[in-house]
């Protein structure tokens, strides 16, 4: 209770610090900036009109025109885009931390109209050293060969097309300071690796991705984090076995996205004579109606020959990892724009329920660790001073099935932006 009270005080302090939500000085400053941007837009308008005239006169008989956008701010960007994630995390029974979680740069280059390069370079937790958790990761670096709408080739470092967040993870597009636990622990977002594959859009709003990519390393599987530490991340990845992954999704109705995906691969290459494999299936959906946004996801992974893996790890490292035969999780989230006005007066509230268990089904002779059968409720708000800037505050109540170990609640504040 004391923890919760202190968080309520923190929220009040936060509102004082960010008075834009309640209409203070910064809010009016932002309004002034928008007005300034509008003036810049008006200055730009003649150029746009000129472009429209040029197009009108083109032999193709096409005309393009920009309707007056009197309230639009003009977002300027250079050759580099990216996103950032700055967090304040206060977990129960731990000291609060300030963490510049993600510093991500996206680069792209078009060799031609149909041959394009995209890269995403990510620095996590600011410093990479032996003393810190920092990581420098090349999460994407691929070349797309855009052949036709239904058939295109992609090769390089690719994202596994599994789940909602893995391919769509810019901070302003999801609520909550941290990504959903299900899409961190069950689906090991950001799930990336070396691969090659095809993608495209079929008729009727159906899209697909189908890749062959590096597999997971079963030596990294654990009882608490599931598959997460098995990612090879394209760093001299073992290519004796490859995984297959794919996604089919429907995007043909405005506001609705429904998808299903799979990932399957042999993962026991680190241990001689171990024939271990993983198959994951996943279903997800998002629906937006006016100011209401609903989303949900279910993911289930089946780990084959896992008893042999546990014994192999115990022989090598001396500790049995107690990896489960099946892990699964799901979440449901609803959000609503309670202030549905153009930024900087745009505010949404959300609530999310998650249930995830990395000890869901055990091999014969193994008992589940109840502390890893978890569920949580998260509530919070996201304030958008700009559609590409998200100020987030949330509170998460975490529970588990253990009678001994308690799961910590957490209070989080985040600032994330895309540019």
């Amino acid at each position, binding site marked *: 209770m004391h923890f919760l009270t202190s968080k309520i005080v923190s929220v009040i302090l936060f509102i004082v610090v960010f008075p834009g939500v309640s209409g203070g000085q910064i809010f009016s400053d932002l309004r002034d900036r928008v007005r300034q941007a509008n003036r810049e837009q008006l200055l730009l308008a003649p150029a746009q009109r000129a472009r429209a005239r*040029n197009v009108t006169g083109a032999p193709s008989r*096409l005309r393009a025109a920009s309707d007056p956008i009197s309230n639009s*701010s003009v977002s300027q960007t250079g050759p580099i885009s990216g996103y950032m994630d700055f967090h304040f995390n206060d977990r129960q029974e731990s000291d609060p931390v300030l963490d510049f979680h993600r510093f991500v740069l996206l680069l792209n280059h078009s060799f031609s109209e149909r041959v*394009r390069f995209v890269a995403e370079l990510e620095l996590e937790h600011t410093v990479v050293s032996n003393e810190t958790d920092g990581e420098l990761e090349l999460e994407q670096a691929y070349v797309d060969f855009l052949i036709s709408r239904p058939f295109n080739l992609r090769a390089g470092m690719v994202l596994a097309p599994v789940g909602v967040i893995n391919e769509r993870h810019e901070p302003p597009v999801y609520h909550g300071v941290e990504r959903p636990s299900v899409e961190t622990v069950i689906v090991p977002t950001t799930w990336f690796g070396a691969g090659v594959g095809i993608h495209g859009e079929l008729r009727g709003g159906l899209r697909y991705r189908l890749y062959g990519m590096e597999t997971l390393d079963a030596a990294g599987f654990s009882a608490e984090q599931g598959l997460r530490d098995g990612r090879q991340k394209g760093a001299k990845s073992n290519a004796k076995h490859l995984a297959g992954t794919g996604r089919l999704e429907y995007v043909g109705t405005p506001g609705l996205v429904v998808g299903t995906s799979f990932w399957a691969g042999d993962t026991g290459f680190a241990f001689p004579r171990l024939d271990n494999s993983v198959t994951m299936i996943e279903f997800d959906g998002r629906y937006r109606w006016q100011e209401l946004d609903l989303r949900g996801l279910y993911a289930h992974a089946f780990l084959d020959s896992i008893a042999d893996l546990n014994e192999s790890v115990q022989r090598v490292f001396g500790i049995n990892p107690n990896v489960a035969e099946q892990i699964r999780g799901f979440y449901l989230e609803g959000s609503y724009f309670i202030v549905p006005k153009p930024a900087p007066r745009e505010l949404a509230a959300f609530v999310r329920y998650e249930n995830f268990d990395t000890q869901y089904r055990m091999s014969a002779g193994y008992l589940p660790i109840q502390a890893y059968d978890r569920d949580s409720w998260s509530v919070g708000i996201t304030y958008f001073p700009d559609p590409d800037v998200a100020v987030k505050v949330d509170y998460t109540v975490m529970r588990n099935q253990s009678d001994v170990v308690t799961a910590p609640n957490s209070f989080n504040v985040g600032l994330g932006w895309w540019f």
Partner: protein
Amino acid sequence: MRTTVILGLVIFSLLGSISRPDARQGTAREVEIVAERFSFTPSEVRVPLGTSLRLRIRSDDTMHGFRIIGKGVNILIPKRRQGEVVVHFEATEAGRFEFWCSRLCGAGHNFMRGAIVVFDDTRNDGEGI
């Protein structure tokens, strides 16, 4: 009586010609397209030859671009709640005209593609295009 019948037939035929316009002479159509990471919805717009197509395009998140390949159209779509752009497309020739997002909008930027399919309605509805 005979004059009235003839006059009636003339008026009827005139009305008939007005109510059954040749598609080639042009009909207007408006389509609303929503852009968001990483799709245009709808991503395919099918119109008969001669249509004067008016595309009203808005974004549900960040700023996107709308470029029709080979047609000289490349325009920015404002961010969520900040307005829309209108693109006029005169369907003067049958074929498939692809449009892409022309502003890097995230990891799935290259997935943001669509097409305007112009078909000659005297033959089919463009299934083969």
